[in-house]
């Protein structure tokens, strides 16, 4: 959780009055969601590792599924939220940076979830297929999705004003989302080592043991709550970062003005060679 130090009185500017009064990103709402998420994750552990049965072919390794599948679904959701927020920023009249921060926060969580999907998927692959990785359609497109959004996060950090950041990342966020159907339907479009979808398929036929399906459902609920909790905290901490950055600029400006004033005084009493050359050597 991010906290902001109280503003220094000597550099007080009008903008600082916009700083949030709270010093933490937590609210009553996030605490409740956090507690419910922890309970749901406890349920996931109980059902995923305990109550659900082993699989006929995969044996105990089927339990990896209860993390592998929910994390990629939540990553899909996260990237869709990024795209929608990006569109809201670009096409709304107000151009609120709140949409931009929601897009960025959601992409960060999505990338983390895809990383989890890939990591636990490789373990499952080693146990079931006999290999950690193969360049089949599903794995390859998922890898592409992963690096694309790492690129998106890098673009967000290229510098410039908050508005510049928002505009260029919004365009990228709306383009990158087309990879999601590519990933999801890759197993239908091409022959792949990866199996086709059991639950999220279009034929409405779920060939899965009841308790396994329920454990998967618990996983989806738990990771959804975790996503919401992370989103709330991350968007708030990003808002604070943006404010802090602006305040930092104001302070830097004030310091430079003071420097200039000092130099002006020094220049009148000292030879030019002793003049401070702040920033001019870059």
């Amino acid at each position: 959780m991010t906290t902001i130090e109280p503003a220094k009185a000597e550099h007080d500017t009008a903008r600082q009055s916009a700083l949030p009064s709270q010093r933490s990103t937590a609210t009553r709402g996030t605490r409740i969601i956090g507690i419910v998420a922890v309970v749901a994750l406890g349920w996931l552990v109980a059902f995923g590792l305990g109550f659900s049965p082993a699989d006929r072919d995969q044996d105990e390794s089927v339990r990896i599924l209860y993390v592998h599948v929910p994390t990629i679904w939540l990553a899909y959701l996260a990237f869709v939220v990024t795209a929608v927020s990006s569109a809201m920023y670009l096409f709304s009249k107000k151009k609120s940076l709140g949409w931009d921060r929601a897009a960025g926060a959601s992409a960060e969580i999505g990338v983390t979830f895809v990383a989890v999907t890939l990591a636990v998927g490789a373990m499952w692959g080693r146990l079931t297929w006999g290999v950690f990785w193969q360049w089949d359609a599903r794995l390859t497109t998922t890898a592409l999705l992963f690096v694309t959004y790492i690129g998106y996060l890098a673009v967000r950090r290229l510098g410039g004003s908050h508005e510049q950041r928002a505009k260029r990342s919004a365009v990228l966020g709306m383009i990158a989302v087309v990879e999601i159907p590519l990933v999801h339907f890759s197993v239908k479009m091409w022959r792949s080592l990866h199996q086709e979808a059991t639950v999220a398929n279009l034929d409405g036929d779920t060939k899965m043991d009841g308790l396994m399906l329920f454990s998967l459902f618990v996983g989806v609920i738990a990771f959804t709550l975790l996503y919401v909790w992370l989103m709330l905290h991350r968007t708030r901490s990003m808002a604070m970062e943006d404010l802090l950055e602006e305040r930092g600029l104001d302070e830097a400006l004030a310091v430079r003005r003071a420097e200039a004033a000092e130099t002006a005084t020094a220049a009148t009493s000292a030879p030019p060679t002793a003049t401070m050359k702040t920033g001019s050597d870059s």
Partner: protein
Amino acid sequence: MSDTDFPPSDDSIANDLDLAPRTNIDGTAMSSRQKRNWLPILVLAMVVVAGGVIVTQFLTSAVDYYCNVDEINVRDGCDDNRRIRLQGTVDEGSVVRSDGVTAFTISFNGASLPVRYSGEPGGIFKECIPVVVHGVIEEGALQGDRVEVKHSDEYVSVNDERVVDAQDLGCDAAA
């Protein structure tokens, strides 16, 4: 905030100082080469390289990952004189292990082919399960150097298997 109270009055000092405002009139940050952070650029360069590798792999490997046994010399890219990935179901009772070599036959859609693999296939390899074997066809048999076990989209409790075992339905029940 305005910049009208700035720069200082002495022009000669102004020439020595970088007095360009660091914020726009509305207080937002201006892009500046001095503030350039190289880490995102480095990450972006790596992303472009990784993306290129992935797309190459996609075009050379991921599109049509395997041929089925009945497609040898029938389907484009499934010729028997080149290295292929062949998919088929391991025939019941065909697995023979001797001198570190695992021999079995795989079938798909009525066509069968013997497979020789040096070593013990990993994963959940067993009879009646679909596999993808990488290798070259020599003397009427696929000399495999890699066996990958495919998993279907079906998830069955291990408890249900005992019921099936009791009925002894063989490959049809397991596949």
